């Protein structure tokens, strides 16, 4: 940790890609430190990004910890700061501090089957886990990725996902089909039930809209997943990232330090205030 925990490091935007267009568009930003090395992070951790004059926002780091040169963030345009991010050009300099929060216990999962279930922009927080697992393919048994968007145009990381085929069993779905889509049509939880992965020696990692998570958890339970083997991340409004400002407080936890990664067993012990 630096001496002044509130002082961001400067980082340069080196690549911008529009993932999803529309009212709530998503762009992926690749950033590199202006001076020296970027901080190291683990899968599932977040960072506080600033645009000076606009403010800060907490975003999960969407690139694998194995990549040291840059960090990647996928940002949906929903508020004051994220809208300003969407105006950025390659070469612009922003502020970053972190990493914040806990991480997915990926090393504990060696030798197991991994099931990822993502919906919409919920792919970003689990993307570092997926890519890290694929990069360390031999450590894990079967890897399955369920991911769905509203329509084929809402599928983020489309090209990167396709590249995973071969290493993972990729199950894409859309809520509403369009011409040229030959994948599954229907909601993500339904797709999970349809394919019914075995809960034997398996860990399920899910992230997406709250309503999706709710049904995914129900379905995972039906498939025989124990609460301890289901992992998700939660989000709350955050300002400091350091367990002090009090905004993300849920029960005795500050999500920015004790979260954002929780097993379903842990989450059941927290008040539903997220």
């Amino acid at each position, binding site marked *: 940790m630096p001496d002044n925990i509130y002082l961001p490091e400067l980082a340069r935007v080196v690549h911008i890609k529009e993932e999803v267009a529309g*009212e*709530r568009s998503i762009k992926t930003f690749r950033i590199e430190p202006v001076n020296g090395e970027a901080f190291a992070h683990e899968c599932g951790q977040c960072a506080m990004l600033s645009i000076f004059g606009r403010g800060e926002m907490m975003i999960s780091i969407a690139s694998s910890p194995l990549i040291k040169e840059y960090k990647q963030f996928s940002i949906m*345009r*929903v*508020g*004051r700061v994220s*809208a300003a991010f*969407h105006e950025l050009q390659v070469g612009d300099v922003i502020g970053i501090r972190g990493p914040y929060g806990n991480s997915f216990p990926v090393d504990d999962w060696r030798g197991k089957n991994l099931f990822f279930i993502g919906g919409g922009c919920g792919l970003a927080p689990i993307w570092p886990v997926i890519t890290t697992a694929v990069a360390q393919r031999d450590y894990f048994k079967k890897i399955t990725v369920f991911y769905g968007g509203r329509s084929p145009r809402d599928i983020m990381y489309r090209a990167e996902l396709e590249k995973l085929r071969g290493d993972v069993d990729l199950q894409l779905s859309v809520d509403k089909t369009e011409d040229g889509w030959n994948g599954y049509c229907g909601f993500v939880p339904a797709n999970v039930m349809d394919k019914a992965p075995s809960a034997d020696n398996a860990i399920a990692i899910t992230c997406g809209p709250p309503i999706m998570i709710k049904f995914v958890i129900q379905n995972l339970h039906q498939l025989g997943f124990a609460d301890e083997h289901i992992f998700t991340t939660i989000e709350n409004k955050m300002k400091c990232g350091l367990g002090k400002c009090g905004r993300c407080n849920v029960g005795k936890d500050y999500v920015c330090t004790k979260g954002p990664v929780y097993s379903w067993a842990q989450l059941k012990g927290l008040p539903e205030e997220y």
Partner: protein
Amino acid sequence: MINIQDMRDTARDLLTKNEVRAVIGYRRSSSGMNAEPVVITTPEQADELVWDPTCFHNLSLYLVEDRKFLAHTRNNPGRPIAIVAKGCDARAIVVLMQEHYFKREEVYIIGMSCEGSGVLVERKLAANGIQATNASFDGDDYVFTTAQGEKRLPAREIMADRCLECRIPYPREHNVVLGEDKTGRELAEPFAALKRFEERDAGERWIFWERQFDRCIRCFACRSVCPMCYCEECVVDSISFPVNAQTTAEEKANRVRWIERSAVRSENITYHLTRAMHLAGRCIDCNECERVCPVNIPLRLLNNKMEREAREQFGYEPGASIGAPALVASFLDNDPEKFIR
């Protein structure tokens, strides 16, 4: 003299006959002498209601809260809600109806005349060295229960200035009313403090306000307690307030930041002057904002200034009639314009 039992009977009766869905009134608080607001929904609770010189609160605030809650839950309750209202509170209810916040038939006003009295000021009471557990009206006196037995004081000595200056201590707009109409009573000259203050020159006035505004901690108690401050979005919060699933990123990004969150003089003064302007012609001088201020900012001076200006320059009385237009949405041909070039 009002018999408290009459108020309780009225409330009980309304609830028993199901004519109202709840009664907003006062009850004894757990921490001492003062009354506190309560919303009762069963006839049995009617006996909790109290009426005494600590019934400061302008309960019309809870009509606003009720309306917001109903809008949020998209609930149409059918029956009105009843409210215990002093003269000033009833005028606040009139202003809210003037602004179409709710309709007349949605509220049942149990009017309480202050007659020759009014509410007390805790600081004035403390200055008299009285630590009481209970206060009650008795004609022109207040009677206190203290550890040393019963104490009696002329009400005028510790009554709120706004009550001393009040000419209409009677809720003209009501469904039932308890107590006599003493409209026109004169316990003190209106706007007395304002007059005294205006004798100071501009430089002194600024020095005074500078000190007051420096003290503000922006707890927003003044705004929160005010029934007229019902805006869903306040200029002070325009950054983060309120968004819903339909609010677009543009809207959020383009919101003007009128006032910073820092509690510094320039921002505090902008906040308080904006609030005074928004209350012009709407403030009915319940003075709750000043009472709840933890750092004693004399907000009544600002509101009084606007009130007197409206009365003297535009002949406008806030809360006089449901059908009247708003002060700043109306004009007279002979409105002053000497200041215009």
